[in-house]
Structure formats: C-alpha cells, structure tokens
C-alpha cells in the first residue's frame, strides 16, 4: 500500500495505482479531468495530457520532485508522494494550454452535434478553458464516413484520444479500424471504409469523449437533454444486457451502456442490445437513470471553474479528513 497526498488530502491505495485513480478514491473537485484514459480499456491514457499534475515529492524514499508535470492517468503512486493538482498554478496553466490545443481544430459545432450535453470536451472547455480563442487559422476538416449502417464517423470532431481503437483491439475479435496519417493530419479510419460489423463494435460510440462517433440510429432524433434516461435490462446471451434507454414518451430513441460518474462504461453491451431492440416491451425497465455526471448542460453551469470555490471545497475535505469522516455523498459530489 502507498500513502500519498493530493492537494493536501491524504489517501492510501495499493501499490501500482495511478495518481488519477488515487484521486478518484478521494473524489470531488481535486480529481484531474481525463479525456483519453479509460479504466476498462488497457493501455489507454497518456495522450491527451489534460490530466497533468505536479509531483512535488516522488516518495518518502526518493523525495525528489519529478522534473516535469506528469500524466496522472499513467503515473503510478509512490509511498509518501506529494501531488499537486488544483494547488499548482503551473498545472492549471498547462491544463488551460491543453484545452486550448484540443479546441484548436475542433469545429465547435455543438449546436448540431448529437453529443452536445454529454460531451466531455464541452464540459472540459467550460471548466478549464479560456473563453476566447487566440487561433485564427483554418480548422482541419474531414468528410463524414459511415462505418457500416449503424455508426457515423465525423472525424472533424475527433480529439484523437485513441479510445475507439482500443475498443477495436480489446472488445472486438477483428480489428478493422485504427489511426492513419500523422500529426494533425492523423485520422481514425477503417480499412478502406470497411464496415465495422462485430458484436461489440458499437461500444466505440460510448467511449468516444466527443461527437466523432455517433449512433446512426439516433442521429438528429433529439437533443439528449430532452430525452428521459431509464435503466433497463433484458436477458442477453452475448452481454450483461444492462443498458440505459433514452426515451421520449414511450419511444426508445437510443440504447447505450451505463456510464459511471467519470463517463466510463464498466459493462460493455452488444450491438444487438444497442441497435436491434428499440421497443420498450423488449426491456425490463428498472427506473429512472440518475445522471450523476456534472455535464455542462445537465447542470446549467456555463461558467468557468471557480478556483476560490474549488479551493474551499478542497479545504473542506481536508477539514473532514482531520476531524470527521467524509460522508459518502460528499466524496462523490
């Protein structure tokens, strides 16, 4: 086990845990954002750089600070490690830079994007970005591609987090898509626009943090915030059958897997559940789905992150730690 502090808050986690996951153990405001890491997909992370943190002390044994900011999602903790996230101006400055980079070539077509309202990039930009852009260049664009009859690839919105390629590697039995080209010309592509038909390929839609991969059976049907999400399940031989139905009245507009508070799917679903069962009678409805993600539009907070407020929150957590135990609902607010 390793004991470390993140922004002064203490936490103990098994050796080998990443700083990000240690922060998630604590929960709340001091959890670094993550755009490419995905806990249920091996080898993800390290690429987007929004989760950068400062390691002010490596460990008790080797107290030297790490020379550069590190990607918290892929850096293992050390016993006695001192991590700074919100308490480091350097980290906040670098993160602001990363958000600016991520938005540089992004079309910002949220008004016509199916992902709007549940988009990690939108959330990130509101919380950590600057409100104006200094970039005046042309943005890169790509033609939209249909990957089979169920999935639409709108590469122009892609932030190259590589998550979908790991889905292809790890969940489907035959990989037919990946990254071609390099630099800012790199693109997600299928091998000569081959249809991705595989029982689990639909999961790439759920792991995509932006609107680059969308469900063709749902495209333009409704804004997500006008739909009514319900937990439901059915007996399925291929997957757990545990899903969220996105309803409008009695109509099932969309079926997705269930995401946790960090926007991550822990139980992937098969394409049959996702695409073929759009009748309520196909499902046992469990009840309304609580969307605990602090999505921009879900919560109506169109403002930038308020540092003073965040610091207060962290201080409050610290006080709790010194005195009382943190109540469960405080941890995952």
């Amino acid at each position, binding site marked *: 086990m390793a004991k470390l502090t993140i922004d002064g808050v203490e936490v103990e986690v098994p050796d080998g845990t990443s700083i990000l996951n240690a922060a998630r153990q604590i929960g709340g405001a001091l959890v670094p954002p993550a755009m490419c890491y995905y806990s249920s997909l091996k080898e993800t992370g*390290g*690429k*987007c750089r929004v989760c950068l943190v400062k390691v002010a002390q490596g460990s008790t044994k080797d107290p030297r600070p790490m020379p550069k*900011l590190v990607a918290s999602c892929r850096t293992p903790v050390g016993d006695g490690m001192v991590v700074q996230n919100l308490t480091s101006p350097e980290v906040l400055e*670098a993160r602001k830079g*990363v958000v600016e980079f991520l938005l*540089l070539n992004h079309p910002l077509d949220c008004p016509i994007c199916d992902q709007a309202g549940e988009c990690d990039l939108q959330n990130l930009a509101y919380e950590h970005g600057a409100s104006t852009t200094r970039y005046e*260049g042309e943005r890169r664009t790509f033609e939209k591609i249909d990957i089979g009859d169920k999935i639409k690839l709108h590469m122009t919105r892609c932030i190259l987090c590589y998550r979908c390629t790991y889905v292809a590697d790890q969940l489907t039995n035959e990989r037919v898509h990946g990254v071609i080209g390099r*630099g800012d010309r790199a693109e997600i592509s299928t091998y000569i626009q081959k249809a991705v038909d595989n029982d689990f390929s639909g999961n790439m839609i759920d792991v995509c943090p932006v609107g680059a991969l969308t469900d063709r059976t749902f495209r333009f049907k409704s804004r997500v915030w006008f739909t009514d999400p319900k937990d439901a399940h059915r007996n399925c031989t291929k997957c757990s059958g545990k899903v969220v139905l996105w309803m409008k009245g009695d109509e099932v507009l969309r079926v997705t897997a269930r995401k946790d508070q960090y926007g991550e799917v822990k139980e992937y679903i098969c394409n049959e559940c996702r695409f073929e069962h759009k009748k309520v009678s196909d499902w046992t409805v469990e009840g309304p789905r609580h969307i605990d993600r602090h999505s921009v539009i879900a919560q109506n907070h169109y403002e930038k992150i308020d540092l003073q407020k965040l610091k207060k929150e962290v201080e409050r957590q610290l006080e709790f730690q010194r005195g009382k135990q943190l109540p469960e609902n405080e941890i995952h607010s």
Partner: protein
Amino acid sequence: MGRKLLLEHIDVPGIETFEVYRKKGGYASVEKALKTMTPDAVTDEVKRSGMRGRGGAGFPTGMKWSFLDRKSTKPRYMVCNADESEPGTFKDRYLMEKIPHLLIEGMITSSYALGANTSFIYIRGEYMYVLQILEKAIDEAYAKGFLGKNILGTDFSLDLYVHPGAGAYICGEETALLESLEGKRGNPRLKPPFPAIAGLYASPTVVNNVETIAAVVPIVNMGGDEYAKIGIGKSTGTKLISASGHINKPGVYEIELGLPVEEFIFSEEYCGGVWKDRRLKAVVAGGSSVPILPTELILTTAKGEPRLMSYESLSDGGFATGTMLGSGGFIVMDETTDIVKNLYTFARFYHHESCGQCSPCREGTGWMEKILHRLHHGHGKKEDIDILVDVAKKIEGNTICPLGDAAAWPVASAVRHFRKEFEEAVVQESLLVNG
C-alpha cells in the same frame, strides 16, 4: 591535427570491403573482446571511457548498458539507431556509407557485451542505398565467421539484421523506433518502462546511435581509461560533426571534444571560415532541435570564456545563453540569413513530423508553423510574437516524447536572441497597410 578514432581510414581505397578493412586492423575489438574479455569487462571499459551517447541526449553509454535487465529470462536485444533524420545531421550516413564494417564491428562487440544474440540496425528509409552497402558488408562478415553461429570459434553467436524505416523522423525516437521495428505504427511509448527493462518485444533492449556503437571499437581496442584521456572533462573522446550552411568547407569532421568553436568554424582544417567573406550571424550547434545562438554567444560563453565543442561548454549558461551539443549537426548562418524564415522552415518540419499522439505537440506544432508562415510573409500581427512564445512554452515539457521540446526550443531561442527581426517582420506589414 586532432586525433581520429573513427574516420582514420575513411579515405583508404576499398575500406568498404572486409579485406581492406581487416588489413587496416579491423575487427580487432571483436577478437579482443570475445577471446580475452568477459561481457561485463567490455561493459566496464565502456563505462570507464566516459563516452556519452552520440544520438543527441548525451546519456553516458556505459551507464545505459548497466541498466539492462540481466536477470530477465527473455532474450536481450541490441538495436542501432540509424534513423538519422534531424535536420543538419548527416554523420551516421557518412560513416555507414564509407566504412560500414566499423559499425558492424561495433555491433558485434556491443552485442557480446550485452549478451544479445539478435541485433538490428534500424535505418531511415531514405538511406536505401546505404542499407544495401550495409547488407553487403554483413554478408562478408557472415562469410568470414564474424557473424552467425559460434563467432571465432567461441560460444557467442549473433545474427544481425538491417531494417528500413518508412520516412518518419519520429521513428528516431527510441521507443517509436522499437514500435516500428515490431511492425507497428511508429508512436513513441509512454515511459517507464524504459527499453532496458521492456524494449523490443517487451524484452530488455539497448538502443544506441550509429556513432556511439562505432566508438565502442576504439574504446575496446585502446581501453576505456586511454579513451577517457581524449577530450575534455566529462566530454571524452572524439565526436563526428556534420558541418553545413554558409561555410567554405561543409562536411563531416571528426573532432576531439574540447576544440574551441572558433577554431572549428574558422580554421582551414575544419569549416574553413564563413563563405563569401561574409560575417557570422548565428549557429545552430547540435541539429535543428537545439537553441540557436548569435555570434557573440557561440564563440564565447556569457562569462566571456571561449566556447568549446563539448557537452558542458555548449550548454554553459543554460538555455538563456547556451545551447546543446545534441547530435552534432552544426549549421552555420551568415549575416544575410533571415532568422524568421529559418525558424519557419524548422517549424514546418516539426509540424510535419509530429506523430500526433499527444495534443500539445499535435496541435501546437501546426499553430506555430501558421504563425511563422504569417510572420515570414509579412502578414504578422503584433501579438503573434508573444503567442508564438507562449505556444512553445505550453508544448515544452508537457508531451510524451521529446519531439515536443525539440519543436519548442528553437522557437523560444530564436525569439530570445533575435526578437528584433521578428518585430521587424510585424512592422513591415503595418507599412504595407498604411503605405
């Protein structure tokens, strides 16, 4: 005349053949190592030599070798980095083309020291003709019993392969190189683990530059202590310098580390002075990735001491007033050089070569190129210079691999030392608009 350890026989006719190379004392290090030394003893000599890697970062080679995981039950690999794509650097090509057996000899001796029985030379795709030269030399070495099973009757066996890249600078970064060698897309890996623990096929691997491996030959022949006497301070031995730009005698020179920069540029033995009787304006001393320095700072340090061709002297003053020896790509610019244009050229290169994996480098390199394009063509805005510096700052240190830094450093240094030229690039535009 400085001592030549690598290029001594470079002009001997037929030196590219096994026969002539052997007559000139070639493959002596293999005989000495395999027959009279243990692998650890060879590593020890390299450690004692103090030689630092010649690929750019200058990491002590002996130390790198000692990190190799010798307890692992997996096979170990020795990989030669011959991807040489840094603008201004062409020494490895010269060496491989002219005296291929020197590299092969170094590969055998080094592989023996590391206990590697399969080794690779990863060569940049554009060097296809050099690949053919190497393969011919390798065939000869096999035929003469220096490669293959039971070399020189010992129980050491080695197979050596040459593998071409497909034209990506990033594949010179050692972990991208290993990915590419494994047949994958050449994206740098996240470290740790370092190659010494999990490199090629997740096995313990050492990656060294062509010149580093070639230098193992004289080190083993003369002994590490003798080698350490050459050079100056912690910069031991000789170094190949690719000299290019506005000089009378461009080419590859072997220098003893510690040679004054002034002597290197102006003496007849080396660059022969700035061409066309022009004045020196600036030098990029270690390949396009290192900070550019104006005349007064390349000839003397900020303290006023003569600047020497050594790792320590060139980096004296840090990035504020110093630079780096890097890969030894020495680019000289005369008084007519347009620094903004030069920087634009470099920025274009890094934008083109970014692998695109991490956001700061993928997006930032393109942004910097666009701003510099504007400045170069006289459409620059006043804010551009500060944005440029800020973008470079936001890339630096925040990426997966050092290509991000390599793209940022030239920008930061060019604006630091030649800010006036950038400001003039902006002013010109306002003249155009108003006039």
